[in-house]
């Protein structure tokens, strides 16, 4: 018997054969299967693609015509900004029922989110997705944004945007890591418990200043060293007592004790 014939009879031969089959099939599929639709599509194609995605993913709760069913609100007139925010941050499709829709994993590609936004925008006029210029933190005045944030937003989101509690399990989330576009869209659409801050009451320039403030706070090193979560005096008091006073008590005990 030749060496090859002997190896064919080895117990590992079947495993190798299966692996080979899988690899060949996978490579052939990847090479030969049709790719995704390109980004260069007409608006009508985008809306149609969005409609298809909507029917597959959203219609069960929001209704086939998006006019709402039960707890799911009507999407007519919410605008592209709402969809870009809700789907782009992973709040929609709703992962689980809870006091408020949690921010979960994003299930769609940016092209799909754009298609969904275009479809919902076509249902009725509503807030649009802001331009990159409108949300550029470098163009905003962080200190003016801080004043506006402090009056309008800090009572729910904390003075540094670290989040806060509302009633019965609802909460205002931590704003760290949220993109400037999503921050703008949240302000303009008022998702869930958040009120609406339309462009006439907080102007686009005001919104850009708020974004500049939030990004500055997020990026700059905390001047005092440990930020302790930016919660303020409670944490600082805790550290002062647990670390500071405990050390002082330890020192006092050591001073008064007899040496061995």
């Amino acid at each position, binding site marked *: 018997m030749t060496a090859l014939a002997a190896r064919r009879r080895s117990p590992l031969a079947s495993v190798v054969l299966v692996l080979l089959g899988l690899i060949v099939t996978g490579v052939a599929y990847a090479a030969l299967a049709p790719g995704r639709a390109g980004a260069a599509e007409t608006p009508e194609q985008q809306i149609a693609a969005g409609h298809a995605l909507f029917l597959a993913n959203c219609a069960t709760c929001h209704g086939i015509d998006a006019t709402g069913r039960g707890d799911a609100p009507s999407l007519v007139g919410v605008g592209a900004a709402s969809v870009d925010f809700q789907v782009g941050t992973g709040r929609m499709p709703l992962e689980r029922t809870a006091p408020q829709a949690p921010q979960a994993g994003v299930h769609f590609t940016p092209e799909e989110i754009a298609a969904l936004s275009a479809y919902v925008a076509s249902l009725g006029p509503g807030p649009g997705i802001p331009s990159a210029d409108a949300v550029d933190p470098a163009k905003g005045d962080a200190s003016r944004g801080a004043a506006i944030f402090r009056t309008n937003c800090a009572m729910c989101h904390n003075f540094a945007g670290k989040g806060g509690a509302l009633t019965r399990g609802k909460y205002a989330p931590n704003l760290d890591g949220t993109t400037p576009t999503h921050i703008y869209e949240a302000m303009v659409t008022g998702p869930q418990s958040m009120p609406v801050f*339309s462009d006439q009451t907080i102007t686009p320039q005001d919104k850009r200043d708020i974004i500049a403030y939030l990004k500055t706070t997020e990026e700059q090193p905390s001047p005092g060293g440990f930020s302790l979560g930016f919660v303020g005096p409670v944490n600082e008091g805790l550290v002062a007592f647990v670390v500071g006073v405990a050390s002082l008590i330890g020192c006092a005990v050591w001073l008064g004790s007899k040496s061995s």
Partner: protein
Amino acid sequence: MSANTPVPQHDSPGREVLSADRGTALPVRFENPGLVPHRHRMADVDPKAAKRAERQVATLFAISALGTLLTLVAYFSIKFDTPMSFMEHMARTRLSTTLLGIGLTMALFGLGAGAVHWAKTLMPDEERVEDRHLQRGSDADRRDAVGILKEGAAESGLGRRPLIRNSLIGALALVPLPALAFLRDTGPMPGNNLSTTMWKAGLKLLSDPQGAPVKAADLRLGSVVHIVPEGLNEVPDYLEEKAKSAVLVIRLDPALLDPVSVPGSYEGIVAYSKICTHMGCPVALYEQQTHHLLCPCHQSTFDVTQNCKVIFGPAKRNLPQLPITVDADGYLVAKSGFHEAVGPSFWERG
């Protein structure tokens, strides 16, 4: 003295012990327990332990010296004399502060810890007894003290010179008067400050902090605007006035409004005082979907669709509504002032 009277006896200088007759339940005397038996430290007994203690003390002093060195190096090497960005400056400040702090802590704590450890382990630690002397002075001292006081009184001549005495009493009586006069600075009396705000008919509602007037048409369903009255910046007691007249404007579906609040509303837009009726915190956490206003301090919750009735929490009264309407240009203006005092309860509120 009968045989049953307790007789003071001196046990040791300064200590008296009352002894009763034998045959009663009390013991005759309490034995002086004396000192705790002396416990020798390792450094007293074992010369190697003493050497080890010495090395430990020296190490602590060495840490202190290192700390001083670290402080000096950090101070002179982290420089701020070149122009740099705000972020870079802040990062460098943090580094400098951290290193200076650590260095100084090592320097000072090392010295202290070394000294304490030296005293505890190596310095003599035998107990010594110091007798406590009587608190009461000797009779001779007491007589001398009284004599000095009497002599001083006589020498002052107050008794012989009534003019001095009387003018002194007169001057002393007048001295407290400025203190009483300064009590005026605790005023002025509030008058009706607690019951009224600067809101009156025709005042525009301006957004806080931008100060822009608000058009009714600019508010979408679910909009919230923080409001201060027109002319707030010109009043002399600007902060006190803002603390009373802050208002929150909310737009709701008019069908949801309580009929009581409808006359003071405009097409679903309502304005309520932002000052909590419990302890005065700003109630501004508006939950759009439930129409609840939450106060962050003690969690009083007000339902905007029931004229801001309290539905949870320690507050007991609704938030006062500011009646609003629009002027000819469509800007929101107050229809009148508040119909009741804003904020927490106070005695004269009734």
